[in-house]
């Protein structure tokens, strides 16, 4: 389980969000004081101060090259949280560091520069300007930065080519389908070449087929360009498809942060467990999560079919089904690091963490 995170752990932290709170309401200053001094709960804050706690004590880190998903149902505070990351909403308490800089300390001009150069944003509603062509929309970010027309149009053209809209530059947004409009939104964010892209439920309004297609394209594009992304969604499947790591939010609180596999295998509480109950483990759970140490297996590992620790359950099942043995040896380098039996596989498919010895070890 640690293995999967080593790369990400060593990468530079681009967004560091430390114990951030957001309280909405007229008496939010008093409410914040009550929270810090007396530790009132969300419900008590609502009753005593008539204030709504949007985000409560959120801590997360987004590293370079990572796609970080924030999953939560409507009203869970995820849209508020993402707007705290580029200070579209001011935090009531806590710190947001972007590229090592506390964004609360930036003045208006520095904040505009930070947003223009380092943080792109894509909206659920796309927010294209209807009276501008696709090219002008894509170039809009550079236009407001004062970049010359030729240069910004070149950058916009390149970004539109990346999202597959090179032939649509002279059209108006109303002439495009929903999926294509969202591609323009993504191209607009890419045109300014930011390191971080904030995605606020970008694909939620699209129909399922287009959504899947865009999810795959988005992940591929982000990885190819080496961008980091914070991706908001209410759909766990989408979070699993896209995210390197996932944070699950409920009532303004981040309940659990981890890889899809960690969350599915070790849900932090009943809420998360209910959420992941319907998720197929076949491609999520990897051999290293379900294997037992070689010593605990009665047989000899010689002659067993071999798989790497990253092999998913689907691969393991195919491997066992294709051989005459009842177990697979998990090999890393030249050493056998574990054994996966049919029994382990069945527990893994159920996602029953208690029945998986390696997870507890």
């Amino acid at each position, binding site marked *: 389980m640690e293995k999967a995170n080593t790369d990400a752990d060593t990468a530079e932290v681009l967004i560091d969000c430390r114990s951030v709170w957001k309280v909405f309401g007229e008496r939010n200053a008093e409410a914040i004081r009550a929270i810090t001094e007396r530790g009132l709960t969300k419900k008590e804050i609502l009753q005593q101060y008539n204030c709504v706690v949007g985000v409560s004590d959120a801590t997360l880190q987004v590293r370079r090259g990572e796609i970080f998903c924030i999953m939560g149902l409507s009203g869970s505070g995820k849209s508020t949280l993402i707007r705290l990351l580029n200070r579209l909403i001011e935090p009531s308490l806590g710190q947001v560091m972007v590229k090592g800089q506390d964004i609360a300390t930036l003045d208006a001009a520095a904040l505009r520069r*930070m947003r*223009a150069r380092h943080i792109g944003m894509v*909206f659920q509603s796309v927010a294209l300007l209807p009276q501008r062509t696709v090219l*002008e929309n894509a170039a809009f970010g550079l236009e407001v*930065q004062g970049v010359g027309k030729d240069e910004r149009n070149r950058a916009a053209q390149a970004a539109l080519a990346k999202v597959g809209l090179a032939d649509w530059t002279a059209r108006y947004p109303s002439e495009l389908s929903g999926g294509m409009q969202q591609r323009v939104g993504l191209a607009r964010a890419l045109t300014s070449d930011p390191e971080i892209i904030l995605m606020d439920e970008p694909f939620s309004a699209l129909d399922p087929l287009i959504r899947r297609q865009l999810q795959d394209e988005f992940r591929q594009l982000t990885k190819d360009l080496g961008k980091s992304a914070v991706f908001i969604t209410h759909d766990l499947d989408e979070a699993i498809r896209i995210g390197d790591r996932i944070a699950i939010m409920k009532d303004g609180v981040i309940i659990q942060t981890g890889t899809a596999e960690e969350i599915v295998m070790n849900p932090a509480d009943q809420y998360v467990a209910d959420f992941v109950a319907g998720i197929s483990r076949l491609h999520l759970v990897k051999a290293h999560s379900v294997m037992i140490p070689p010593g605990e297996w009665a047989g000899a590992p010689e002659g067993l079919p071999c798989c790497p620790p990253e092999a998913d359950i689907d691969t393991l099942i195919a491997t066992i089904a294709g051989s005459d043995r009842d177990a697979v040896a998990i090999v890393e380098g030249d050493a056998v690091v574990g054994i996966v039996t049919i029994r382990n596989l069945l527990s893994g498919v159920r996602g029953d963490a208690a029945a998986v010895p390696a997870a507890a070890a």
Partner: protein
Amino acid sequence: MTLPSEFSPGAFLAPAIDWLNANFHPFFALITRVIEAVLGAIEGALLALPPLGVIGLAVLAALLAIHLRAAILAGCCLGFCWLSGLWTGSMQTIALVAVAVTISVAIAFPLGILAARRPRLEAGLRPVLDIMQTVPPWVYLIPAVMIFSLGRVPAIIATIVYGVPPMLRLTTLAFRGVPRDLKELGQAIGAKPGTILWKIELPAARPTLLVGLNQCILLSLAMVVLAGLVGAGGLGAEVTRGLTRMEMGLGLRAGLAIVAVALLMDRLSRGAIERGGRRPG
């Protein structure tokens, strides 16, 4: 039963007006001179050329700046004013309304934007606008005439008082109605507030703003009749003359000429703004 004292704001207002008149006369005289000069210049320019020349120029300008339909409309409207024998009055009215609408928009547009951003300002403005729209214009014409004396200046002031509220209300509505995510987009890409206003909010607000301008022009033209009453000349004077002499023909002609001028000004301003807004940058 008699009341101990009647509520009489006039008792306080009349001395106040007198005091203003006595102490700020140079200031009011300056306003009068500026407005008269601008009005005179526009009127002079419109009347310097022969009617057919003005019509030709207007049609040409509409054709080049807007489109063929607007050019035809301009030709018909101005042609009617000319053929009905009310050319001078029509030009005076156009000058009067153009100046009044320009000043109304100059007041209402920035205030309307401010009101859209500050709910408290809007709450404070609302009763003022209600009063401006419901108090009969004759009432505030009295102090206006007292200060500026008879003529075109009090007429313009009455027209502005009438023209500001619809423009202001609709400006506020227009900027309130700009989708929140568009404004958020502007902030998220690091646009300056001025850039957000001109490049995002204004285009999104344009359709409602045009309704506001239309209302401003039409209501201003409705005040033209009143302007005739205080001696501002123009088509209003013709209507007044028709009424006092019970000349149905003259009144009707002047009334229709007002309609023609209204159509002309509304369609041309709308066409010019829509044309300018279609392909910015």
